[in-house]
């Protein structure tokens, strides 16, 4: 009987204690963050979407090699000596036209390994993390600044330059050969005589 009364009293009393606790929680500040309107401050070294500052890129392919999932695709075209591509912000001379610089964020694993080898610090992590797309292809970001026409133009220039160079080289060789031939020709009669 004593236990019975005790049970009933405990039943009521513990419910009241519990109710007090839940009531206090009604007035504690909620932990919810109203996400799209309010955002949490990101940690300092957060790794999100990459960005490439093409003005500084020298097309050294270091990042492409570093990438463990091969999500970076770079193509370069040599510049002609008559063109001055300028220098990067830390004083490196640019010698290559970067015609393609694609990063496929569908593949990217956000490991940041591409960031460290970059000699000009032109590839780095940004704070953007909201870039979902409906098409997987739209996640393939194209950073190259040259238009296709420009690329064609640059390639042609290089071809012309190469051809000229080859021609010059061939000519020089020819001249050299001729000279040599001449020399041998000149030498020959002497020995014959």
């Amino acid at each position, binding site marked *: 009987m004593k236990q019975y009364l005790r*049970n009933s009293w405990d*039943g009521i009393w513990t419910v009241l204690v519990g109710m007090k606790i*839940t009531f206090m929680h009604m007035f504690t500040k909620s932990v919810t963050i109203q996400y799209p309107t309010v955002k949490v401050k990101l940690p300092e070294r957060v790794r999100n979407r990459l960005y490439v500052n093409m003005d500084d890129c020298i097309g050294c392919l270091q990042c492409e090699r570093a990438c463990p999932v091969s999500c970076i695709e770079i193509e370069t075209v040599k510049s002609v000596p008559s063109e001055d591509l300028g220098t990067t912000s830390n004083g490196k001379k640019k010698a290559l036209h970067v015609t393609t610089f694609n990063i496929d964020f569908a593949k990217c694993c956000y490991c940041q390994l591409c960031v460290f080898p970059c000699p000009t610090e032109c590839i780095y992590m940004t704070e953007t993390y909201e870039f979902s797309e409906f098409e997987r292809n739209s996640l393939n970001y194209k950073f190259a600044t040259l238009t296709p026409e420009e690329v064609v133009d640059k390639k042609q220039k290089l071809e012309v330059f190469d051809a000229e160079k080859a021609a010059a080289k061939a000519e020089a060789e020819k001249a050299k050969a001729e000279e040599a031939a001449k020399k041998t020709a000149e030498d020959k009669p002497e020995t014959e005589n």
Partner: protein
Amino acid sequence: MIQEILIDLFGNEIVAFIISAALPLVFIVPFVIFAVWLERKVSAHMQDRLGPMRVGWHGVLQTVADFIKLVQKEDIIAADADKKMFILAPIMVFAGSYAAYAAFPFSSAYIGSGVDVGIFFVIAISSVVVAGLLMAGWASNNKYSLYGAMRSAAQIVSYEIPTALVILSIVMVTGTLSLAEMSELQAGGFWNWQIFGGAETGLVKILLIPFMIIAFIIFYISSLAEVNRTPFDMPEAESELVSGYHTEYSGMKFSIFFLAEYANMFAVSAIAAILFFGGYQSPFGYIGDLLGIDWLVPFEQLFWFAMKGLFFVFVQMWLRWTLPRVRVDQLMTICWKYLIPYAFVNLIIIGLITLI
């Protein structure tokens, strides 16, 4: 009173009474819309969350948006379901809970039906809900639905007994079954409420207070079980039975179940308010009386009635986030081993006190 005004207005008794019968619906629908939002807000804040925040100010229109979504949904009837019963069940459940509103005195000016057997009628008609729930569970042809319905029936039938015993003790004190008369008896400030011994004076009043409090606790616990609220929400038990008897329901039928559930929540809260907390009576007196504006008094009474009901609905939500669900054996233990003996003893003591 409103009936007379309506008869005067339309000159036709049938039209007047149909409109009078529809009036509680005007109360229930906004109440449900508000209560669903309140439930979500209360549960969120008790868990240190925010709850709905987007639709309207702090999400007040969330329920309206949800309702519009529900109406657009396809009305699915499972292939193996018993079609007729499946359709009839939600109607029956809602009809049962709506019929109870007929006997509630919303204010001194409006009571759906001033029957003398008021509280008896409410207890009787709310049993129709059980039949509806069983029907829904059976017609769904789904094991979880049937489990839910069976549990619901077992639970409601068990807990009717302590409820009835407590109501009986109140009836002994007031000497009437009519809810309007009960409310009328508790007029004149909160110290005249039944929980404080009613309109009695002297020794009887003081002796009644502790037993009235016990009666109220018993009534409140068993009323929780009767509307299938946590900790007695075994019939719905989301985590074990999907959602009990309304698992198979969708669209409009589901929303009717929802409406009936919240209507029931208010109904039991309103009964608690009428039996113990003075019904529509104001705890302090009326502004209308103070200013000499007669027509204001019924509106104030409606306000107090709604406030008391809402408060107990709030306590139901509060308990939901405080207590875990009880097991079936615990459920039966609470009812048969604790509530019923206490209710009997309480009944006898209150009976003896009223003899003094």
